[in-house]
């Protein structure tokens, strides 16, 4: 990692004791466990898509440390505004696996009533605002929620995830502008995974990196090794504390890599080399934490095997249940456009019901 990029644990699992956040064993296990679940989940969803049982999926393989480590720095009452590639943060905060799968299938058990395409998870009871597809919109929303919390005197922070590509969006600029003018307690967490679909990060910015953009807003900006979960946790925790103390927002750039395709529709061999991918595979964030745990004598072969088995079983169970659930009702298609169904929508529902019977 280049200078200025915080790292706590290196590729070989060696760590700097002065920087080690020294988390208790149970907490370290929780982090590790979440990353394994996430990896298993990703692999299974890709398999389902390949088997034609799911239409589309966007995996986060290789980026688990960046979002799990940062989400871990938040309290449950803090609000999360995901992009779409933060499966681990969803799992860590407690969205049930079955709910994640039901959402992907768009079935009747989905809390969003089967309306969303791919990776649009959220849960109001967990203060996770469902992500949507348009790139960058979550950024000003997170700032607005933070300003509202500040107005109400709630000591919470909001965190918005977004990618390197998203920094080119106008929303990045207006979100950071508002946050800096109003000292909103928001963490802008950029997962620089080197690509926006096929477009490399250099095509998004004339600056040498993303963190440096913070200066244009009079804001703190930091770079962190995004494959080092302890380093990610550290910088995010610092940012959260500053925000909670009324010292305003922070821009964090976590340097990581998307090992898998952008989505199941993407063929990354069109725009990047296998060597590049391999070089990043060696920086696998899961392996990194495992080496750290092993170095500290906190993990072994047996635990490892058990954990994988458990994760596989849990994911299988979730898929089994979700796949058994029926499609949403026709009625539900017309709900929630407005709080009360309008006359026009009632008529249209009747129309749909008529035609649905013929079908």
């Amino acid at each position, binding site marked *: 990692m280049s200078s200025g990029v915080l790292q706590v644990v290196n590729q070989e699992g060696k760590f700097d004791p002065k920087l080690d956040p020294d988390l208790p064993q149970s907490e370290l296990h929780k982090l590790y466990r979440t990353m394994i679940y996430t990896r298993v989940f990703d692999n299974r969803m890709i398999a389902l898509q390949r088997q034609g049982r799911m239409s589309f999926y966007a995996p986060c393989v290789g980026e688990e440390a960046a979002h799990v480590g940062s989400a871990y720095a938040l309290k449950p009452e803090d609000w999360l505004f995901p992009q779409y590639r933060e499966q681990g943060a969803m799992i860590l905060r407690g969205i049930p696996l079955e709910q994640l799968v039901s959402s992907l299938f768009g079935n009747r058990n989905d809390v*969003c009533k089967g309306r969303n395409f791919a990776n649009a998870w959220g849960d109001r009871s967990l203060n996770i605002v469902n992500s949507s597809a348009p790139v960058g919109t979550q950024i000003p929303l997170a700032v*607005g929620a933070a300003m509202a919390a500040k107005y109400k005197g709630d000591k919470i922070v909001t965190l918005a995830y977004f990618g390197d590509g998203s920094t080119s969006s106008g929303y990045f600029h*207006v979100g950071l502008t*508002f946050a800096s003018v109003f000292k909103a307690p928001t963490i802008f967490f950029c997962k620089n995974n080197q690509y926006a679909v096929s477009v490399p990060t250099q095509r998004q910015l004339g600056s040498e990196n993303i963190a440096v953009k913070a200066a244009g807003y009079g804001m703190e900006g930091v770079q962190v090794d995004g494959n080092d979960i302890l380093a990610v946790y550290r910088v995010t925790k610092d940012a959260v504390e500053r925000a909670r103390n009324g010292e305003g927002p922070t821009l964090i750039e976590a340097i990581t890599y998307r090992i898998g395709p952008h989505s199941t529709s993407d063929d990354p061999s069109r725009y990047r080399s296998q060597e590049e991918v391999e070089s990043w595979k060696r920086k696998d964030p899961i392996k990194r934490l495992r080496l750290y745990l092993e170095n500290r004598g906190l993990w072994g072969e047996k635990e490892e095997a058990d954990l994988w088995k458990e994760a596989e079983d849990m994911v299988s169970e979730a898929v089994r249940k979700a796949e058994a659930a029926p499609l949403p009702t026709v009625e539900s298609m017309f709900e929630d*456009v407005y709080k009360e169904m309008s006359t026009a929508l009632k008529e249209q529902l009747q129309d749909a019901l008529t035609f649905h019977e013929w079908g």
Partner: protein
Amino acid sequence: MPVLTVVQAINKALSEEMSKDESIVLLGEDIGVNGGVFRATEGLYQTFGSNRVIDTPLTESGIIGIAMGMSLYGLKPVAEIQFLDFIYPAFDLIVNELAKFRYRTGGHYTAHMVIRAPCGGGIKGGMYHSQSSETYFIHTAGLKVVMPSSSYDAKGLLIAAIRDDDPVIFLEPKRLYRSIKGEVPEGDYAVQLGRASVLTEGEDVSLFTYGAMVHVALEAAKKAGEKGISVEVVDLRTLSPLDFDAMVTSVKKTGRVVIVHEAPRTLGLGAEISAIISEKAFLHLEAPIARVTGYDTPYHYSLEEVYLPNVEKVLKTVEKTASF
């Protein structure tokens, strides 16, 4: 009852609701210290302070994005867009987020907020200070769209919009701000969203309109009356969702329809009204449904009198429709 201009009525609605409900905050450009470029928020900064009347940076996508984030957290923001013509930088947020939030979150997260914007022509403002772009919002499922034509309705509809659980685009015909006055009750009353209002009963022709054109329509109806044509003027007030029943009831009585709006003709609201009436009252129609509208050009600066529907145009069209 006090007599207020339309802009005073709007100011009253804001200030009374803000006094009652701490979760209401205002955001916009120049709405605080300056009281708004049309003075709609005059005095509110002084009364409610800078935390509730927020002068924002100059970015409409910021204003709407921030307001919406606030509403997700439970506030009830009322955002001002200085001129409707400048709302488009926020169009993505309005169409893809605001309109769809309740839907896509299965009803879990909702955006309880109002966007106020001065709209329409008649003040010599040219193509960027005169637009009537309600079509973009009416076509977007998930938004409610409201446009008052009187001081009474301005206050009552704005109160209803602020209390409504769905996002409301509240369009204020800027040329009425000071030119129209009317009695406005003190204190609490709301004009229900989704309900048109029959302003004059008539037998021969139904005239459907809204906003500033209501006054043109009323004048034309009067003149038509002098010529023996009895016109029923219906002020739609809420443009989405539309009050079908009021329109169909009127058409069943008159069999003849003239629609007036200043928005451009092609896919202006008149198109939908015409289509609905064809569908729901075809056998009652005795003449083609006529539209008197703005033209399909950008709004013209120095020829705005030519661009806009006026009493003569409406009157001639009513006569033609009545005698078809």
